[in-house]
């Protein structure tokens, strides 16, 4: 009976794929909405993409700036041998002064509860809702960035300048309860970096986040031995093949110098694994990411469809620690150890999201909408719109996405001939600092042209978060070596030029005002 049912299901599925228009017609006649059809299709007509195939993984990412050190990810066999994550119910983390009385004891008294039942995901709405849950779900309970002790320590909040929501909630981590008395601090959710506490204390999910991750990490590392600080910093950032090996040089310094480098990364930027605290990437705004063709500031991951976003999530939730870069692995492993069949007990490397979970997550990310923009069009913004066109901004920041979705080479990178056919290239450097894309594991030699949508709730600006405000972007003084960058400066540096993207610097003050007013409407 079962094979017969499967055969029938397969036939119906084939018929549907071939003649879906005919299927739609009676539904439309019956007055069912397109939204309803979409839900129906999710339920009955579509398959969840298989995210990790050796073929797909092979050329999904762009090569490294030094191509011989391009990432070689784990195989599909390894990937699908990892156990799927069980999604437990998680709980709010409060600032110690705001924690409800008895909350801590209550957390220790409750049993584990599994919150996500994938078999119940049928409609588009189901997937989006589950995706939001997964967006906030911490994949680590080992204390990857911040620990249980940190978040129960008032000094941690003061040191890291941790923003809180209006109810005194620290929204970047969650308590995970895996059994009675087993309460862990959960790290490394998507929301950890991509949640912004707005000025009124509300939360904006998907935005350039306001988690002061590197400062928070530095706080925890203060008590760690120097060798441990060096080891973990090496896991995160080592790229020994990079010219001058700047991360190797950092690791040769004293513990305090390394902690200072972490603490120098401003809120709105984060040195996640494979990037840098010397060239820290601005946290990307995920709102509108569906319309962007490359992911990461260096455009490392191609984004051609939802599968690519799923891959990006899977890879970036720490699986890239298992990548081989030539013969180098960030954790000091080799192919033999990685493929030994034994779990690698490092945050994010011993289990994985199921494809269905990743699909839900991606669906949720695609669904995130910006809140209503308080900056309405006016005479001033209309003037700014004309200046935007006159200054040629539209060439790269092309409406409607306000990006042309292309990759621009950084200074010092020569575009390989074959890239012109493979990728979307805008073959001129705008001269911004090349460090991130030429000296990190994620560096490709390119920077993607960023979208200007949502500038009103974003900042700091530039790929390395050097400039706090849009006014600073248009300030010609930033090109001078005496300039004091208004956001990321760098540890031990008092002043430096913020070079590149020298557009609009010569506009008169009124035109700058109009241009900025327009940009804030996007």
């Amino acid at each position, binding site marked *: 009976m079962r094979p017969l049912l499967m055969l029938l299901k397969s036939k119906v599925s084939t018929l549907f794929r071939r003649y879906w228009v005919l299927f739609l017609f009676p539904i439309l006649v019956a007055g069912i909405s397109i939204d309803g059809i979409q839900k129906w299709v999710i339920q009955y007509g579509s398959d969840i993409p298989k995210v990790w195939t050796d073929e797909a993984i092979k050329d999904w990412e762009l090569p490294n700036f030094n191509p011989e050190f391009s990432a070689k990810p784990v195989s599909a066999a390894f990937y699908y041998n990892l156990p799927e994550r069980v999604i437990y119910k998680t709980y709010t983390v409060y600032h110690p002064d705001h924690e409800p009385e008895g909350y801590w004891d209550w957390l220790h008294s409750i049993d584990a509860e599994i919150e996500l039942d994938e078999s119940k995901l049928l409609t588009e709405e189901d997937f989006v809702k589950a995706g939001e849950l997964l967006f906030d779900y911490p994949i680590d309970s080992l204390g990857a960035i911040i620990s249980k002790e940190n978040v129960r320590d008032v000094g941690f909040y003061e040191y890291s300048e941790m923003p809180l929501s209006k109810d005194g909630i620290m929204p970047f981590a969650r308590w995970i309860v895996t059994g009675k008395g087993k309460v862990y601090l959960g790290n490394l959710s998507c929301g950890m970096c991509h949640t912004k506490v707005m000025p009124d204390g509300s939360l904006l999910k998907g935005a350039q986040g306001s988690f002061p991750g590197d400062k928070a990490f530095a706080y925890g590392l203060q008590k760690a031995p120097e060798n441990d600080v060096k080891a973990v910093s090496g896991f995160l950032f080592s790229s020994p093949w990079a010219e001058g090996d700047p991360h190797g040089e950092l690791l040769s310094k004293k513990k305090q110098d390394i902690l200072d480098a972490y603490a120098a990364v401003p809120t709105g930027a984060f040195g996640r694994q494979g990037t840098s605290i010397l060239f820290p990437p601005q946290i990307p705004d995920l709102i509108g990411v569906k319309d962007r063709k490359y992911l990461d500031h260096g455009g490392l991951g191609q984004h051609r469809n939802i599968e690519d976003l799923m891959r990006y999530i899977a890879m970036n939730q720490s699986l890239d620690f298992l990548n081989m870069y030539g013969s180098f692995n960030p954790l000091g492993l080799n192919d033999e150890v990685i493929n030994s069949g034994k779990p690698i007990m490092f945050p994010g490397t011993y289990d994985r999201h199921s494809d269905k979970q990743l699909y839900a997550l991606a669906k949720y990310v695609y669904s995130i909408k910006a809140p209503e923009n308080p900056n309405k069009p006016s005479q001033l913004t209309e003037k700014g719109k*004309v200046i*935007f*066109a*006159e*200054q*040629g901004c*539209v*060439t790269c920041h*092309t*409406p409607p996405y306000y990006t042309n979705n292309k990759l621009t080479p950084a200074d010092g990178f020569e575009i390989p001939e074959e890239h*012109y056919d493979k990728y979307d*290239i*805008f*073959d*001129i450097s*705008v001269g911004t600092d090349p460090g991130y894309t030429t000296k990190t594991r994620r560096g490709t030699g390119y920077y993607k042209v960023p979208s200007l949508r949502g500038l009103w709730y974003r900042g700091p600006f530039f790929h390395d978060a050097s400039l706090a405000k849009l006014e600073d972007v248009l300030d010609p003084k930033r090109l001078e070596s005496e300039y004091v960058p208004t956001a990321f400066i760098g540890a031990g540096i008092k002043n430096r030029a913020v070079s590149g993207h*020298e*557009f609009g610097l010569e506009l008169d003050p009124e035109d700058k005002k109009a241009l900025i007013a327009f940009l804030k409407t996007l």
Partner: protein
Amino acid sequence: MKVKILLLLVFLFPFQIFCQSKNTIDPIRFQIKNAGINVDGTISDWEYEISFDPKNLIDSKIKATANPQSIETGIKLRDKHLQGRQYFNVEKFPEIRISSKRFTSKGKGRFVGIFELQVKDVKKEITIPFAMIKSGKNQRFSAEFTINRLDYGIGESSLVLGDEVKILINFEK
């Protein structure tokens, strides 16, 4: 009366400065719409060989080359990009070439020329109406015509950048 003339001159002088746009003295100008706004540009480095006799159109010849490396649009980085491989690719194609094939008269100093225009590695025959006014020993040529940049592989189709480029020629020999 003198005061009036003086006042008139004082009034006209800034007006004349305002009207004397840079464009009138640039022999090769172009215009293209970008986000609904006309972007003006020039190509300042060019050479020509002209032997044009309105009474002997059969033996008349106009031949010119222009160096796309001398493109200016008012934004240096844009100029550099236009010189790159996705636009003029000046390293590989350092010259834009145009050469006449035949002319016909349209009366009163007006002519139509059939030219071969080569941009990058694309050659196309184009028709250019132009005027030639003789002033003493000199001849002043002026023409205005439009090409589709995509026909010559200049950039790619764009939501904001127009395909059509208006070219305005004005020089004296």
